């Protein structure tokens, strides 16, 4: 596709419910990232996928958060038993294969705004 897409754009849920957020990266991009942006804060790294390698989950705030990437393309971020403090914008980004010695620009989607009541 032309850019990174995310769905839904907005999600309102009740405390204790599970939610799934979807990310479609740019076609051909092997790296995929999830970030969380809380109100008034910068972006907080959550998880990173690169090709078929094991993901870096070091940024996930609790075991209620998980993510998977099927077929090296679409990714789903799942939050179980949502809490009010999970309310935030969840941003996905993708980048092409990383070459040694150089940065690869991350291209971001429009995010999913999650509100937990």
């Amino acid at each position, binding site marked *: 596709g032309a850019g990174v897409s995310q769905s839904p754009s907005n999600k309102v849920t009740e405390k204790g419910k599970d939610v799934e957020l979807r990310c479609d990266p740019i076609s051909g991009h092997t790296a995929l*990232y999830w*970030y969380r942006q809380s109100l008034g804060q910068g972006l*907080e790294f959550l998880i*990173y996928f690169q090709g078929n390698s094991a993901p870096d989950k070091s940024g996930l705030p609790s075991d209620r958060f998980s993510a998977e990437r099927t077929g090296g393309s679409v990714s789903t971020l799942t939050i179980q038993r949502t809490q009010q403090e999970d309310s935030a914008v969840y941003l996905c*980004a993708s980048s092409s294969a990383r070459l040694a010695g150089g*940065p690869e620009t991350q291209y971001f989607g*429009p995010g999913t*705004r999650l509100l937990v009541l």
Partner: protein
Amino acid sequence: AQTVTQSQPEMSVQEAETVTLSCTYDTSESDYYLFWYKQPPSRQMILVIRQEAYKQQNATENRFSVNFQKAAKSFSLKISDSQLGDAAMYFCAYEGAGTYKYIFGTGTRLKVLA
């Protein structure tokens, strides 16, 4: 651990004027990359400019330029001839070479006055 600080929560600039957004960072690494991203109300983060730490020359992209002071660990963004469409949140980000995680500052909201 690396940190990125943006000390200006909000800035205003008159249309056609120049504004500078500040960013400082803390790191013990010698090789890294720095980025400025723009986030308009649509929420989509857009890359404005990037700088490789090993390059002494400041990066420039049209009306956007940076003042990269490696010894001072400072990476400010200058926007010349400000336009109404420049109004957005601006985030400074750091990436250590050989890593892939961006570390973001808390952002600066830029208002452009007509």
